[in-house]
């Protein structure tokens, strides 16, 4: 007799739990080394590379930083940043976001020293990178004044999962119909705990405050590691 037995196997587990765990371990390892990992996300052309260039120039030899820069193709961003900071290009060959494995490979190929700051410049995209935890301690979302000030509400997950909002290209404010208040209010509606900064890499406004913010974040990280030990 053809006796087919049907049963239900209960599992109830987040399928990304292994990825989340791997990211948490990476975050902890880097925290113990005293490295603050910052994941920079934005749409293309918001000024991530320019911000990193300005950051490296501002700090000079006073901080040890490194950059992993993601793009779908070319090594242009790495070449641009190479005169100012240790940098590795992560080329995804078409993928719309970076994944932790690629970040680990990039970090392994950097000079073996304890950086105080590791910046990950993600692929320019406000959608997919929001769903990929790269083991960062802080996610910083950039919105430039040449984009719409209604971006946060349209990409809620990215703003919900970020800890800071950077409004970039503020030197253009006299020429573009962009309301800084509107973008901040829209973002705070989604993530009320966001720190908000405004910068221009062309005239240098806000770069010092941004670098101070980074220092403060790293101090908080080191304090939190100290408390756990």
């Amino acid at each position, binding site marked *: 007799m053809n006796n087919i037995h049907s*049963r*239900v196997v209960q*599992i109830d587990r987040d399928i990304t739990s292994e990825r989340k765990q791997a990211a948490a371990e990476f975050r902890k390892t880097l925290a113990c080394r005293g490295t603050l990992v910052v994941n920079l996300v934005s749409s293309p052309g918001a000024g991530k590379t320019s911000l990193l260039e300005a950051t490296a120039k501002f700090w000079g030899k006073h901080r040890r930083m490194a950059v992993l820069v993601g793009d779908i193709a070319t090594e242009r961003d790495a070449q641009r940043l190479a005169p100012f900071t240790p940098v590795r290009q992560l080329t995804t060959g078409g993928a719309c976001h970076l994944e932790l494995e690629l970040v680990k490979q990039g970090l392994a190929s950097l000079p073996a020293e304890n950086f105080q700051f590791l910046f990950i410049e993600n692929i320019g995209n406000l959608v997919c990178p929001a769903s990929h935890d790269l083991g960062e301690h802080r996610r910083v979302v950039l919105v430039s004044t040449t984009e719409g000030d209604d971006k946060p509400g349209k990409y809620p997950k990215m703003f919900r999962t970020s800890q800071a909002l950077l409004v970039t290209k503020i030197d253009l404010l006299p020429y573009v119909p962009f309301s800084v208040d509107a973008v901040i209010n829209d973002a705070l509606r989604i993530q009320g705990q966001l720190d908000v900064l405004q910068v221009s890499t062309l005239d240098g406004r806000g770069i010092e405050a941004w670098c101070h913010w980074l220092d403060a974040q790293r101090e908080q990280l080191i304090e939190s590691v100290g408390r756990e030990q």
Partner: protein
Amino acid sequence: MHEFSLVQLLIAQAVRAAAPAKPESIRMIHVALGPLTGVEPVLVQQAFESLKASTALNTCELEILEQPLTAVCLECGADFEINNFVFRCANCNCDRIQITQGDELRLVSLQVEEQATTQMLAACSSTTTSNKGTQDE
């Protein structure tokens, strides 16, 4: 297109969870999908249909249960549903809230169909299994 990489993870985990049953015995996969995962149910379904063809799950079906986005207020303790991505407490309007559901893609259960053997029937009578089919609700 990260739906594809998620569905690859899903298929691999379903196969592992079904063991020792063979992958081809999995008839149905039930998943719960929250709005904050950033993936579209329709695209997850499409990704599943195209990826399963090259695996032992080629006759398996995927059922996606869309979950609401819910949170708990860390100030007043209210449990509430988040609508239109307004991340504020529905009771006291503060922003100190914690998401409780809606940011994950959960593998809920599998429906497995096997040719029953005497041992299996014996094993089943001593465990809590169901042969009613797919719906729990």
